[in-house]
């Protein structure tokens, strides 16, 4: 039987600051080496200052993955020399003196398979290496330390996957879950990375490192299974080793590990006392934990009668489900859900578009309301949506700006006529003596609709209101 286990590294991109200093957690917007300070650079005399929210957000992840959580967390040093590590050790977690990592023994369902979570730990990301130089002699390693110290959560699963497809499914579920918890933005480049270990029946465990994206992870696992099966068929021994994913050639290659890489000399990080996380804190986190995707989906179906398919799409996306919750006033939930899934998702299909969008929940509520009351056609609604996304103006303004108002609509006109009749009480009274005054009232309606009212229909309706033949 094929066994696959994963180690997922997820940056807590929704945090403001790094794990141990006040530099920005999202390093992406900076020039090289400008998001650094003595702490994340390990300048002598600096001390790590643990970020409270990082502990809380990591604990949320542990809770959402059904993990057990400790009363106290401890940090350890993992010692190894590498130019992207400013201190030449990484501050991470280990369960050496009881369970003191953020979480352990969790589980998550992937289809019909239960994937067990072995351990979740909080740690710092290293800096980034850039290689330069064409020839062996001029080769240089350049380092950008902006990323060093970014809060990272490592999620280690048991080897419970049997197929690359399950891996892919799990990663989708996990991405959605992390996004839903508002701890990470898995769409950001480098925010999610993973290592995998793969073994087939009768073979040793092979680790695959250096997989840059979730997309490649599935491919790498697939490649590795095929490679191992082919070895087995030819009766060649599968050796226990670490292999790297070669992004260019899309294959795994053996990484000749040196013996020294295995010696990390773990010991407690004394600069950070063990942090007590009491039951009160855990309860608070639990209470304020965003509703899970599955419970959201269930609620959408049972409470609002939304179809399971639409509820599924809606609930698994944090952005659109939030939009839905804001727009929804309980009377038109189905229509709002449909508008989001059929119209809006297509218009806001990238992160950039969502970030730039001015669309608010109220706009959707209004749109659905307008369509329902025939103030606007569905076709016009789409045009209005485009406009709202661009400028965020009120729907009524946009309809006016774009002349989307449907003034030949009987209901709309009736509304306007009612207004005119209200305002022109004297003319209404006079019309009983002088039926021609109806023309004056037609003019008033035309004024109100800026000439867009259907004159014949207006006249007809006015006559009906005034009881004139």
């Amino acid at each position: 039987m094929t066994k696959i286990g994963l180690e997922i590294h997820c940056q807590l991109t929704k945090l403001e600051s790094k794990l141990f200093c006040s530099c920005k957690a999202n390093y992406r917007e900076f020039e090289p080496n400008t998001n650094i300070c003595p702490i994340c650079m390990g300048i002598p005399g600096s001390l790590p200052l643990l970020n409270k929210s990082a502990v809380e957000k990591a604990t949320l992840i542990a809770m959402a993955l059904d993990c057990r959580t400790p009363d106290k967390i401890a940090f350890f040093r993992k010692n190894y020399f590498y130019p992207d590590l400013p201190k030449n050790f990484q501050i991470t977690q280990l369960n050496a003196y009881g369970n003191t990592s953020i979480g352990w023994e969790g589980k998550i369902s992937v289809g019909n398979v239960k994937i067990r979570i072995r351990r979740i730990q909080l740690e710092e990301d290293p800096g980034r290496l850039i290689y330069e130089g064409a020839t062996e002699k001029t080769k240089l390693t350049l380092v950008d330390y902006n990323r060093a110290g970014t809060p990272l959560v490592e999620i280690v699963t048991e080897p419970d996957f049997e197929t690359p497809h399950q891996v892919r499914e799990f990663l989708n579920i996990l991405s959605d879950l992390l996004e839903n918890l508002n701890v990470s933005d898995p769409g950001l480049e480098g925010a999610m990375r993973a290592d995998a270990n793969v073994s087939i029946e009768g073979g040793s465990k092979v680790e695959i490192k250096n997989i840059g994206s979730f997309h490649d992870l599935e491919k790498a696992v697939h490649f590795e299974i095929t490679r191992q099966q082919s070895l087995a068929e030819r009766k060649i021994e599968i050796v226990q080793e670490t292999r790297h994913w070669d992004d260019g050639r899309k294959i795994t290659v053996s990484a000749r590990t040196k013996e020294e890489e295995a010696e990390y000399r773990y010991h407690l990080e004394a600069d950070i006392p063990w942090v007590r996380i009491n039951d009160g804190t855990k309860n608070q986190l639990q209470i304020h934990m965003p509703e899970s995707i599955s419970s959201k989906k269930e609620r959408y179906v049972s409470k609002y009668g939304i179809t399971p398919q639409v509820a599924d799409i809606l609930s698994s996306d944090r952005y659109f489900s939030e939009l839905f919750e804001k727009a929804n006033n309980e009377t038109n939930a189905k229509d709002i859900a449909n508008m989001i899934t059929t119209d809006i998702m297509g218009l806001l299909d990238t992160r950039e578009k969502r970030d730039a969008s001015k669309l608010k929940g109220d706009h959707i509520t209004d749109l659905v309301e307008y369509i329902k009351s025939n103030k606007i056609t569905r076709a016009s609604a789409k045009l209005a949506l485009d406009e709202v996304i661009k400028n965020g103006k009120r729907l009524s303004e946009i309809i006016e700006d774009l002349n989307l108002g449907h003034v030949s609509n009987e209901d709309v006109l009736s509304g306007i006529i009612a207004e005119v009749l209200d305002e022109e009480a004297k003319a209404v009274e006079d019309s009983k003596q002088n039926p021609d005054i109806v023309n004056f009232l037609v003019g008033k309606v035309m004024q109100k609709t800026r000439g867009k009212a259907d004159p014949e229909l207006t006249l007809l309706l006015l006559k009906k209101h005034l009881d004139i033949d």
Partner: protein
Amino acid sequence: MVSEEEIAHVAKLMKIELEDHSSHIKRVQKMLEYFDILDNANVESEEIIVQETDLDKLRDDKYVPYDKDLLKFLNSYQGKYVKAPKLN
């Protein structure tokens, strides 16, 4: 007694390369030999005692840009990058 080879091996892992190891290694060997006294302490069943703190004493998550140009305190950089030796 811990062998000289073992100590020399650890020295290499610690990126300590010396032209003349022998005097250092002998001395480290003597120190390790003295550490054997720990075997008599009879502490196997002890739980370790550590410093503790409360979650709410920790730093609030706030971005505060570092107000100095740290790069000028560093040496060996190329452009805005820190220059490191090539990796094998």
